[in-house]
């Protein structure tokens, strides 16, 4: 009784399920499906992904990746040898065995030491500007990598366990899909037959279009795009990849029974199903007091367990060569230890860790001074890290986005590729 037009351009598979009875339409569509999946196999072999491990609050990289034993600023932790050429903290013993896969960029030098500004800058490569919202890593990379996976039915940018930064001028279609680390996505089931769902969507689409055609601006049309994505997701088999509980006990144990551990495990599952960008958040690094005890008792063991499991697992499954891992926070913490045995905000000299997707592992790039207060080699910025990750993922640094105001914006804000990662 309803028109046969496809409301909201539902995913092909879903749309076909409604058309199953209409034999005239079934045949050509199935034929099309075969070629689609043949291509997909080919694409699958070279598709790239990235996982951002986001350390909200600003982790003290001097206590993790760039130790200064003996310096007055050094703190109590000792360095240990790793499977690569760089030493790291004694409280990261599992990660030490994975460092052949990772590069520590020890000469990060940035200027944003306020949480919000730093989070924005490190996520976008741009300093906050009241007149424009820049898209974040996840939005940019998933936007660039989406063409490699036509079969993807779930959102291309997933944020696990915490906030990310939004899609800015790329629009809500590239917003992070936020889930908790349990992988539970709420409200997935309408509890109605597909026919009735379809008819409701038809009516909704008609109302949406009526409003959009009245020149009400982009908010009205953005909403329609989200509805389409939502419908695809509700009906997708790929939603299973969120269910970390389905993993074998031994695997779950290896990642650690923590929110971050489950998040990292989910990230691997999502990479496997084709999600190009996953951000996993681990907060609580804003340690203005009692920092070393907190690090050694809780924070570093949780990080060590999950991050090492993820790296190892990706490597063993052959996924690491196409998957970039980025570990960073909004900034780091003062070399000076304050009166409350804590460290405060510090952006001038700190470390970021990257690995996978063909980037050189086992190295430390750049150098800080003996007390950790200065960068002694070429300083690197958020833009440089982003440019390097793009390079590893095969995304051209000439890629240009156009902001809503028509201003061209180069990907990674003209950052320079860090050459030690690729030589």
């Amino acid at each position, binding site marked *: 009784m309803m028109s046969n037009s496809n409301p909201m351009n539902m995913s092909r598979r879903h749309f076909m399920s409604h058309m199953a009875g209409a034999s005239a339409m079934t045949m050509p569509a199935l034929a099309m499906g075969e070629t689609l999946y043949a291509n997909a196999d080919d694409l699958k072999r070279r598709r790239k992904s990235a996982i951002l491990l986001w350390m909200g609050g600003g982790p003290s990289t001097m206590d993790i990746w760039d130790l200064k034993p003996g310096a007055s600023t050094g703190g109590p932790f000792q360095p240990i040898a790793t499977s690569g050429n760089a030493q790291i903290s004694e409280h990261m013993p599992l990660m030490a065995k994975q460092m052949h896969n990772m590069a520590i960029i020890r000469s990060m030098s940035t200027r944003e030491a306020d949480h919000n500004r730093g989070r924005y800058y490190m996520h976008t490569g741009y300093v906050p500007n009241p007149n424009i919202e820049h898209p974040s890593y996840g939005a940019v990379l998933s936007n660039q990598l989406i063409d490699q996976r036509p079969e993807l039915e779930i959102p291309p940018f997933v944020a696990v366990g915490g906030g990310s930064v939004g899609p800015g001028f790329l629009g809500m279609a590239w917003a992070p899909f936020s889930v908790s680390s349990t992988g539970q996505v709420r409200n997935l089931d309408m509890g109605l037959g597909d026919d009735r769902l379809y008819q409701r969507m038809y009516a909704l689409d008609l*109302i949406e279009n009526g*409003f959009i055609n009245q020149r009400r601006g982009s908010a009205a049309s953005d909403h329609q795009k989200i509805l389409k994505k939502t419908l695809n997701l509700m009906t997708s088999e790929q939603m299973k990849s969120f269910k970390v509980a389905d993993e074998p006990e031994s695997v779950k144990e290896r990642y650690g029974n923590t929110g971050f551990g489950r998040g990292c495990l989910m990230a691997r599952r999502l990479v496997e199903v084709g999600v190009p960008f996953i951000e996993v958040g681990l907060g609580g690094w804003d340690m203005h007091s009692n920092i070393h005890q907190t690090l050694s008792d809780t924070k570093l063991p949780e990080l060590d367990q999950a991050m090492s499991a993820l790296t190892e697992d990706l490597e063993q499954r052959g996924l690491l060569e196409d998957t970039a891992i980025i570990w960073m926070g909004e900034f780091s913490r003062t070399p000076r230890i304050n009166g409350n045995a804590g460290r405060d905000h510090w952006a001038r000299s700190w470390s970021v860790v990257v690995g996978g997707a063909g980037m050189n592992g086992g190295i430390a790039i750049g150098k800080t001074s003996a007390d950790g207060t200065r960068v002694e080699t070429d300083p690197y910025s958020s833009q440089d890290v982003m440019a390097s990750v793009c390079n590893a993922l095969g995304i051209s640094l000439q890629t240009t986005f156009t902001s809503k105001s028509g201003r061209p914006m180069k990907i990674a804000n003209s950052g320079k590729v860090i050459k030690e990662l690729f030589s």
Partner: protein
Amino acid sequence: MKNKILIFSSIILSTLVPLSAYAQDSQDYGIPEVSFINQQIRQGWDDYEIRPSTLATDGEWCRRVFLDIIGRVPSVEELHKFVKDKDLGKKKKLVTQLLNDENYTEDYAKNWTTLWTNVLIGRSGGTERNSLTNRAGLQKYLRDSLARNKYYNEIVQELVTATGSNTPGTENYNGAVNFLTMKLEENATLATAETSRVFLGLQVQCTQCHNHPFNEWKQQKFWEMNAFFRQTRSLRRFTTGTRNVSHVELVNESFTGEGLTKDPDKADIYYELRNGITKVAYPVFVDGTKIDPSGYVEDVIRRDELGKLIVNSTYLDKMAVNRIWAHFMGYGFTKPIDDMGPHNPSSHPELVDYLGQQFRKKSFDLKQLITWVVLSEPYALSSRTNSSNETADDPLLGETPKFSRFYIRQMRAEELYESLITATSADKGRGSYEEQETRKSQWLSQFIVAFGNDEGGEQTSFNGTIPQALMMFNGDLVKQATKKDGGSFLDQLAKSNLSNTQKINYLFEAAFARQPAKKEVEVANKLLVARKGDLTAALQDIWWAVLNSNEFILNH
């Protein structure tokens, strides 16, 4: 008068007469402040050669006024009453009603309590483990204050200077303390930053650690402001004989200073420059006014002095004007609205100054300020763009807002909730006020995303993400709103003696404040066929589609 504008607008559309020609022609309801707003905003249109959008329909205007003043859409009955009123002064009449009629007092107070609570302690304030904030305590204080229209300067003074217990029902209860109870850790740096930002529009948090590169604020000023809070402490009080916290009390205590001499007559504080040099600070207000440096509460209560200085500052007036303006217009005169320091000039400086002065002159009466903004011409414009303002006045494109159209925006989560309740009686048998609020905050908690730092940063919005779309598709609240069992909203509508067409009209009016278009009626009829004549089920499908549409969740 209004018809005249409509006719006039269409003339402009077709003939492009000189833009300034309409200047004398818009309704100001005999209110000089409204007239001044209209004149100043039109000046901006002329300067940028922008033609404003036409006026919004009565239904659209009514819907947005209800949403913005009392936090929910109008009921169908309320809508009809306004639309059918032939009185030329009906807009002023409706605004007066929403602000002053006792039938709306509760809605008004509830809406503005929510807004101010979010400004003062954030959407998650009071929900933290071992929180020193009692959210309900603050809300009770705000609700009481707003319901009897306490003047803004008094509210601010009370929030800044409050002492007493944070929890209703305990001794010395004073809900106003909850603004500060949890902002005093680490030498009250958060209290300093938030008090300056929220009431004065001055962003000082960056200057805690260094001189700000762009604005006039220096590190010294931050700590001079900070010194006002150093007599203040939050104390946990226990239920007698137990270790259970009964409430938190905010008190002023004599402060000996941080220096080695501990001389309370000159209670000093110290801070560190980036190069490690230590400097001293005493309480000095942003405009340079010094107060007695004694730390003895018998000599001077520093927060009391701060409260007086704040309410005398013109920054207070401008910040209030900017906040109220942004609430109704979607954008303020500065971006962000609470950064009004000299480094961040406003888009309409004369208007801000004038409205600030008038607000002060009229005793800081928030309801008057609201009336001026709501009855102004820019607030009455349609959200439909025209060729002249589509891009030239789109703040999403980075343009400075020129207010030549109504900027479309998502309903706040709270507005969505209250609107669903209003439109459907979804929460029937709602229980006590406290129970209703608990249910609401449980529902709202899904919108809170914490950022994992100590400054309580959070992102909380209903901004149209997929989980939110899922929540509207399938969530409990919408299930409630669209259920069709006996006695439900849809059941009652189906059984009413309205015709089928009228029933469909009713749904569209309840959600959109307009009647359905021809195509929409057609699709509704098709659904009725598809449901094999089960009217309630068909209404359920329509209602679901209506509530999930952009037109419902946007304020337009």
